[in-house]
């Protein structure tokens, strides 16, 4: 319990540090959300000055940071000037959409990677390993954008699944089950693109982790007893490789909010990606800060979950 509490305190300190540095860097960047208004001849300089005073843009950054922190504690995450609403209300539906997409893609990528990596490790140096290695090398070499465009082309040619968005036009009138089906169809393309982009990296990692364990003397010794392959993999190799795989899983969880930016933009998925892009272009500091902080929270959360899983899975860590 003490270990968990200590990790939570570390996480809070880390998030505070990330938020302060991010806020300082964003403040140091030239220009702000009102600069474009000044170019508009219909808006007087006095009106712009009044708006700047209203939103405290000219205050020193520590003061603005303190205001921002107070609004985070209220769950508002500041005020978005370009969207004219509290960032919190803007953030949650977008984050939910992104999480739906990335969580499914991560689960799919791991479901592909673990058995594939194990099979490759068990057939090291043989044709199955070389074939698998070739496929993952090709997938790793294809840029994510090209992969999405290929899938988009496939979807457009075959019409097997929708090419963008989250729901079809008029889906609001559909029943819940039909709406869920519509959503599932819209998820296929982005989930596939994300999973195919992530899986090769995971496959390589799983293969190398399991290979290293299969060479361990204790597994050779177990094999000498006539232990079958299934037991070697599930009772010995996977638990022994679990530590590095759990750390990678933590990283996967941490990257949930940041991996899909490009795919969301290309496939018009209403997630955090397009929001972040628009906010950056509009210099909407509070929105950018909120997205950065949410990503940082996930990174910290991923590491925390990985730590707890390691603690649960490895008796040697519990004994320390």
């Amino acid at each position: 319990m003490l270990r968990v509490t200590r990790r939570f305190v570390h996480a809070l300190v880390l998030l505070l540090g990330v938020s302060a540095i991010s806020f300082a860097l964003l403040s140091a960047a030239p220009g702000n959300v009102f600069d474009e208004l000044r170019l508009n001849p219909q808006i007087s300089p006095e009106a712009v000055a009044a708006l700047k005073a209203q939103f405290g843009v000219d205050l020193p950054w520590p003061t603005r940071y303190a205001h921002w922190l107070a609004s985070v504690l209220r769950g508002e995450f500041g005020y978005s000037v370009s969207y004219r609403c509290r960032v919190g209300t803007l953030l949650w539906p977008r984050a939910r959409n992104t999480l739906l997409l990335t969580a499914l893609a991560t689960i799919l990528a791991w479901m592909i990677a673990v058995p594939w990596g194990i099979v490759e490790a068990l057939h090291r140096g043989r044709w199955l390993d070389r074939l698998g290695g070739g496929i993952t090398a090709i997938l790793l070499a294809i840029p994510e954008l090209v992969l999405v465009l290929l899938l988009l082309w496939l979807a457009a040619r075959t019409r097997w699944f929708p090419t963008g968005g989250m729901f079809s036009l008029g889906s609001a009138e559909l029943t819940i089950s039909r709406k869920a089906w519509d959503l599932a169809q819209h998820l296929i393309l982005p989930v596939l693109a994300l999973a195919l982009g992530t899986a090769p990296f995971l496959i390589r990692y799983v293969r190398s982790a399991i290979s290293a364990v299969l060479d361990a003397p204790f597994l050779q010794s177990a094999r000498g007893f006539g232990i079958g392959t299934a037991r070697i993999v599930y009772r010995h190799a996977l638990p022994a490789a679990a530590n590095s795989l759990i750390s990678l899983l933590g990283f996967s969880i941490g990257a949930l909010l940041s991996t899909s930016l490009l795919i969301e933009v290309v496939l018009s998925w209403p997630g955090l990606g397009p929001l972040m892009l628009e906010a950056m272009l509009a210099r909407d500091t509070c929105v950018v800060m909120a997205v950065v902080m949410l990503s940082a929270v996930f990174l910290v959360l991923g590491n925390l979950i990985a730590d707890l899983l390691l603690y649960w899975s490895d008796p040697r860590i519990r004994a320390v």
Partner: protein
Amino acid sequence: MENRPPANGQAQPPVLLSVQGLSLEYARRHAFRAKRTETHALRDVSFDLREGETLALVGPSGSGKSSLAKCLVLLETPSTGRILYRGTDILQLPPEARREVRGEMHLIFQDASTALNPRWTVTEIVREPLTIHSKGLSSAESTRLVIEALEQVELGANWHARRPRELSGGQRQRVALARALMLRPKLLILDEALASLDLSAQGQLGNLLLELQQRYAMSYLYVTHDMRMASVLAHHFAVLDGGRIVPRTLPTELIAGTLQPVS
């Protein structure tokens, strides 16, 4: 420890293991060359091991001793040759029958600190062969057998819940021995099994091996480069050099005339 009395002069026990013309080659691929290099780890190795006897296989590092030990428990597949166990070539057996034979012959590695699953307790490690080879055994019965095996290697109850890293080198090797004893093997292959231990632990474990051999009429293939220990444990010896069994006499001052060259 006492030197072993020579096995000759008594009625010859039947041959348990007969290795005939065993060769093993490792092929190595080169990154920029199509041609593969072949390393001959074993060349035409032949010897017999009789029931209840110990054959010391001595030789310098890289002579192929460990490769031979791995071939015998089917961790490596020899290129040519036969491994006859009680007259049956185990290389020709179907997987299920091979598994049965594997229950009767066990390999004990040099470094028990890496040969035991570091995440498991002593009890879990020792129990494992039973879960593979004696399915259907009740939990109480298997626990009784585990405790019995650990008692045989003189490892008290206070060590049963420990993990390998909490044990000394000698204790780890005892755990490896207890695990091997679980299925009442007929043949133990000791691949430098005492080499990583200090002299006192070597002596204790050597005595234990002699005692267990007498009690259960086990055969040992003792792979070593320690001729002094070989002279204590073995009835016969064979010298392996460059992957071949070579006719060679061991230094007399080390073996005190107790060992017989292998036929």
